[in-house]
């Protein structure tokens, strides 16, 4: 018998500790927690954190694979999402949208389908989507 494949949740959100090419600057690190201009990014990160915890609480670690990722990690995101859409086969318009990043951040991609685009969806929305596409 084949093991049941995990459902997938990809949370795409910005990092609240960003500071890119930082080889010779050390990076924002803990200081980003103090900087008030990170407030809006941090607020989204907090909401995503809450969602992350809620999904784990509902489904545990073994049934759903949760990935939290920055939008700039496109080298990883592109093949990952391609794999998801091939596996879960959402509608063509959604495939185009997710594959070409035609969505606002934050977004949550549940089994290849973006939900709550530009906002962090509620746990109920995520659970509903997971149940409908993955029979969880």
């Amino acid at each position, binding site marked *: 018998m084949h093991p049941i494949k995990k459902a997938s949740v990809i949370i795409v959100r910005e990092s609240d*500790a960003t500071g890119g*090419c*930082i080889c010779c*600057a050390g*990076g924002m*690190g803990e200081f980003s927690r103090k900087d008030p201009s990170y407030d809006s*990014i941090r607020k989204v990160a907090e909401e995503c954190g809450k969602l992350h915890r809620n999904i784990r609480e509902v489904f545990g670690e073994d049934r759903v694979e949760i990935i939290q990722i920055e*939008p700039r990690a496109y080298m990883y995101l592109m093949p990952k999402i391609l794999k998801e859409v091939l596996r879960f086969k959402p509608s063509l318009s959604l495939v185009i949208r997710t594959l070409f990043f035609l969505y*606002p*951040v934050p977004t949550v991609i549940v089994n290849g389908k973006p939900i709550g685009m530009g906002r962090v969806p509620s746990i109920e929305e995520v659970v509903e989507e997971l149940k409908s596409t993955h029979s969880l």
Partner: protein
Amino acid sequence: MTVDAMPLVIGALCVMAIFYRYYHGFIAAKVAVLDDTRKTPAYTMYDGQNYYPTNKWVLFGHHFAAITGAGPLIGPVLAAQFGVLPGYLWILIGVVLAGAVHDFIIFFASVRHGGKSLAEIARTQISPLSGFIASIAILFILVVALAGLGLAVVNALAESPWGVFTIGCTIPIALFMGLYMYRFRKGRIAEGTLIGVIFLMLAVIFGKDVANSSIAPYFTLPKAKITLFILLYGFVASILPVWMLLCPRDYLSAFMKIGTIAFLAIGIIVVNPELKMPLVTDYIHGGGPIIPGTLFPFAFITIACGAISGFHSLVASGTSPKMVSKESDIKTIGFVAMLIEGFIGILALIAATALHPGDYFAINVPPGVFEKLGISVVNLEQLSAEVGENLVGRTGGAVSLAVGMAQVFSSIPGMRHLMDYWYHFAIMFEALFILTTIDTGTRVARFMIQEFGGKLYKPFERVDNLPSAVISSALVSAAWGYFVFTGTISTIWPMFGTANQLLAGIALCVGTTFIISLGRVKYAWVTLVPMAFVMATTLSAGWMNITHNFLPLTKKEGFALQGYINTLLTALIMVCAVIILLDSFRCWYRMIFVEKRGIEVIKGEVASD
């Protein structure tokens, strides 16, 4: 005798693969004893926001993007004055034996300390004094680093209307991207980045028309004016909200970084350029026109980031350890990310040494000094004509790297006539990195000053306090700006290298203490040997800098203040390192001979346990 690039590239890849498989495997298995049954901070401190388990490759990309900057590109170019071999060997040996080990062990130590920072680990492992000194050292080192990189940009842009226009455009482009992504079409990161990249390419393309138009004089600026502009940029950018400049620049840089480096690697493999620089030059004995001093210790501090970089310890003890999902992932992330950084350093060295020595020195040395070298230029006039810039005396490393990169790119079939575009693209690529570093670095240093200031006057530490932010940003900008205004690459880069390497030495000290505290004193040599080498080279380089360069400067008319300040700063950084070293010796003695740490008692592992 000259060599082709290909054997060096393949040789480097083979050495890195062998060391990763065996030596780094040994460190992971025997020294660190990575244990996947032990929960990482991503689980023990899980909050889903800062601490959460992350896929190995996602974290690898995040970690690699954070450690890669302009340092590994510029250092090897400047060290090419010693010939191809010294730089090549130091990058290769340094990265496998020191740099990768340094990044790994600090990453590992941070994971075992609940994702704590280097200064906090120093405080826990060695003493509160060492933790405090490490923070002070980081602040000084940051100032010198910003000066070194700032000077490279200034020299690349001076009297270059095309360059100034293109780089100048990156600021409104980033501002527009910021408004687009965070105000007009909130959250549309991909759209905003795509628009930004297109505008950036247009800025490179139309820069040529601007340089040939009647408005060119407005963009033809002397060094002093460019320094002032960059200074103002650093000051303003460090106060502005991050979404206006810092975040959008990050997205631009991320795209440019991966694309350009991959293209350079492919270009070098396809073109396989002949390296015209001799394997070893006479400057190994000293008297070099770019970096004054002998091969030892100066080659080792000139190539900083490509072989070993202290700044990586800040990244390795920053966000990465909070997100690693199991300890065995640290091996891939910690070691391989640094090995790739070393490989980038080798690519930069190849690009620079593919130039004829005469052309290389004519670019990297002031004209008056070049005349005295007795070397003739070979292709410089043709290169200048092809790139549309006067390349003579464009010191700092950025220009010769850009010429080298443009030469490689334009040697790809069908690209020959695009040399001028490639050159300005390469300059834009380097400046994009450096301006982001200046933005982040000034901001971080500002926070540190506010933190220190807060100990004297409490309200000063509030980061949302505008007067405090303005004063501390002005202090930081003035500090690194002073060095750019008064210094040359020959004085600043060795200071930067010394500072960066000393930070690495401090981190290796902390790493050694951690290994001993784990009860594995017999394996402490894996960090102790690179630490001894790095400390010996950098402390001797610092001493030689003071005695041979800076103190004589104090006797030169008009340079006395500069000489004293350089002496003081170098001495301060050296004293910081020596204090931490002595404090570590005391700590090691206590652990080995008093506490008899042969047993696997782990100090300071509260978080993971």
